Structures are given as structure tokens and as C-alpha cells.
């Protein structure tokens, strides 16, 4: 660690903006962004699978509430949702005394809740579309084998739906990473928050934001690579035979 610091100090010598302090802010920002995006995507994904199944239910009273939820969260800006969850909850009477307050007090959790609910809504719709697109033949074949609807869902519909949803879901992950840039409006020091800090401190918009943009580009590149790999593995059977 000592050596790393020394190496950094010599590397940054004479640089006014990118001091070890500001790089430290960018590093904290990267960690915050990664945590926020990863955790919200994970929980969002777990919520989205059952919601997508319910969304396709034949019963109106199961289908409609889920539809309402995805409609509201896809129909309003994420920034507005974040403001409502962060600043809005404090106006609920007695919230400061409730057991929820230690969680809602930090800026991190309200942001996490907003991001999770938002990505869960989009992912639900992506999965719902993929489930609906399952060919009738596969379902009829499953029924002919005597599979129950539950077993059909588990063995036939969901595995192929996940595969179909993969490219669209990859986009959702990248959108979520970029959408997380608004976290700094509720005081979170994410990558954009660090850039805003450096910008305000040194009046250097280009340096501050281009550096942040480069970090986002690297993250996006990693996500793209991961999904390209997954698609290659999971969608191998869809590739043209003569293809390379």
C-alpha cells in the first residue's frame, strides 16, 4: 500500500486536479456505483421472475396489479421516483421513530429501493414478453407428456424465455448503470458525484466529467463482454450452422 501511494504520488506530480485525494473520491464513487447497480439488479431480477409469471396470469385480479406496478414505474422518470422515496418519506408521520428509519436515513438505501423497483418493473416486462413468445407447440408438447402447468413453466417455458430475454436484459443492465448517475442528487458519492465534486472544486468540467465518462465506458465494456459471452454459450443452438 505504501509503495502504491508513493508510485501514485510520483505519477501525479504537478497535476493540480488529479491528486491522490480526488482519485480517492473517484474510487469511492466507483465502489458506490458498482454496489448500487449490482445489488439493485440482483434484487430486481429476483423480484421480476415471479412478477413476470403473474403478469401473464389469466386472472384479472392477479394480472392487473402487476400491470399497474410496471406501468407506474416505467411511466415516470427514475429521478422523480428517487426524489419521492428520498425526500418524500420524511413527511410520513412518525417515520423517524419507526424501525425503518435507520435504513431510510442513509442516502444509499432510498436510492437502492428506487433503483430496484425501477429495474424490476422493466425486467418484468422483458420477461413477460419472452414468456408470451414461447411457441404454442412446445407448450402443447409438454401437456401431451402430462406435465402440470407448474412443471411446464419450470422446465419448458422459463429456460427458453430466459434465453430469449438475454439480449434485451443486457441492455437493461447498461441502462441501469447509466441511470445510476442520478444518485448524486441525493448526496451519494457515486462516480458522477465524484465528478461533480471535482468540477465544483477546481472549475474543470472537461477533466472531471471526461474522467467519469471513461470509467463508465470501461464498466459498459465489461458488461457488454459478459453478455456477449453468455449469449454465445446459451444461444449457441440458434446460431446458423454455417456461421463462425
Amino acid at each position: 500500500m505504501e509503495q502504491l501511494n508513493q508510485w501514485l504520488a510520483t505519477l501525479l506530480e504537478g497535476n493540480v486536479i488529479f491528486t491522490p485525494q480526488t482519485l480517492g473520491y473517484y474510487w469511492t464513487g466507483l465502489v458506490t456505483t458498482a454496489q448500487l447497480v449490482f445489488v439493485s439488479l440482483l434484487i430486481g431480477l429476483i423480484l421480476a421472475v415471479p412478477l413476470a409469471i403473474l403478469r401473464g396470469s389469466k386472472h384479472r385480479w392477479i394480472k392487473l396489479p402487476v400491470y399497474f406496478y410496471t406501468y407506474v414505474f416505467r411511466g415516470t422518470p427514475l429521478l422523480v421516483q428517487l426524489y419521492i422515496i428520498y425526500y418524500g418519506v420524511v413527511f410520513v408521520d412518525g417515520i423517524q421513530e419507526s424501525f425503518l428509519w435507520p435504513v431510510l436515513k442513509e442516502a444509499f438505501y432510498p436510492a437502492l429501493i428506487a433503483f430496484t423497483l425501477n429495474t424490476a418493473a422493466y425486467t418484468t416486462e422483458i420477461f413477460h414478453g419472452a414468456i408470451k413468445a414461447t411457441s404454442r407447440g412446445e407448450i402443447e408438447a409438454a401437456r401431451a407428456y402430462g406435465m402440470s402447468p407448474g412443471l411446464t413453466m419450470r422446465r419448458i417455458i422459463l429456460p427458453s424465455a430466459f434465453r430469449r430475454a438475454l439480449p434485451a436484459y443486457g441492455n437493461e443492465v447498461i441502462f441501469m448503470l447509466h441511470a445510476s448517475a442520478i444518485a448524486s442528487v441525493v448526496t451519494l458519492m457515486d462516480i458522477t458525484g465524484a465528478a461533480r465534486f471535482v468540477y465544483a472544486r477546481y472549475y474543470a468540467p472537461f477533466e472531471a466529467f471526461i474522467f467519469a465518462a471513461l470509467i463508465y465506458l470501461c464498466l459498459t465494456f465489461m458488461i457488454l463482454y459478459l453478455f456477449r459471452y453468455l449469449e454465445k454459450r446459451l444461444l449457441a443452438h440458434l446460431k446458423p450452422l454455417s456461421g463462425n
Partner: protein
Amino acid sequence: MKKLLTVSLLGVAIAAGTAQARDYDHVRFGVDVPYEPMEYRTPEGELTGFDIELGNALCEEIGVTCEWIEQEWDGIIPGLLSRKYDAIMSSMTINDERRATVLFSDPYITPPSAWFAPEEADIGEPSTEALDGMTIGVQRGTLQDNYVTDHYGDVADISRYSTADDMVLDMEAERLDIVFLDFPVGKSTLLESDERAYKVVGEMITEPKEYFGDGFGIAFRPRDEALAERFNEALATLKEDGTYDEIYQRYFEE
């Protein structure tokens, strides 16, 4: 050739004539209103504020009459140079950029910053020990942000807000332990708040200069050195005889 010489001599004479400093017995001040509590109008429409009261007291001390002329901020220095008024007393921070075009008096105030916390909070005089582990609110990119980041960035959590209103909201929501603000802003938003009771913690802070600047000065046209000197002397007198403190307390004490 002769004619040209006469004309240029005449020109020099005119230039010399106007360059001669006037002896003022009436001073017109340019001011950008409102900027509470430095300059603003009372509900009755009367112009008042720290700048106005101090300016009037200074004029009285010098023995001149004075007049206040309202001027938008972006045209305030051109207005001075084009003789719409003779001086600017409008919360103008002294800096080198402005020094190139105008002549500043001695600084008459450095607007103080202060720590604000809820009335019931048990926080001592702010120091690295007292603020250890606290969440401090500041406005992003302000001199208060720079000061807090450099002094307490290692021991405390710093929450940065785009506007003072967002910060006050989070203070009322109990998300922040303490905030560091321009005193006048904190006074009007926190001390006069109906939601919760707040107090000032510790002293008002105006030092060190590298963070809080040189303070506000009265700006004159560069050739009015004599006038600036008269104001500097008057300012020193008012600071000595207590008039200055009396006005200061009226605007910058709780």
C-alpha cells in the same frame, strides 16, 4: 501641422481636466437589491440592510450626503465607470480581476460562515474530535464545502447538496447532525424555521483567508483615490467608536 498640434494639445488639456479628482459633497452608491441581509427592501418598501446602514453612517462621518441607485449586478461596474454613480457598495468581493478596473476601499466585512445544529444536539466547539463520525451538510462547491472537506473530510461524513433548501429538508428529516453555511442563509432558513429549533454551534468563522476570501469592499473609479481614502479613514473611525459593531450586531447576531 500646427492645427493638429493645437487639437492634440486641446485634447490633452481636456483629458487632464476630467482626470482631476472632484471634491465630492454628494456621493451616489450603486447597489443591486435584494441580497438579504446586506441590501433589501422592508415590507414597507424602504431600502435597508447592512451595506445601506454602514454606507449611510460612513457618509455622515465624512460629512457628505449620499444617495442609493439601484443597478442590476451584471452592469454594476460599467455603471460606475460611466458615472451613473460614484461608488459601489453591494456585497462586492474584492478580487484581482475586479481590481484591474476599479479601486477598492479596505474590506469592510467578511461575511461569516457558521455551524448550525438542532437545539437539543450535544456538540461542543467544532473540532476534529467533536465532529468525529458526524454527518455534515454543505452546499456543493461553496467555500464552506472546501473548508469542511479539507478540515474534516477524514473524520466525518460530508453530504453535499445542490441547493440550501435540499440541505434544510434533510436537516429537518434528521439525516444530518450539523451543517456549515453562510450565516445569513442559515439564519433565515434554520434559526427562523418553524419546524424545529436550531442553534449556532461555536464561533462565526471568517478565517483563514485562503478559504473565506478578502471580504467585501466599496468600489470606486480608479482616479478617485482621495475619496477612497476618506472612506477608509471613516471606516476606521466607525470601527473604533463602536458604530460599526452596533450595525454588525443588528444583522449578524442571532
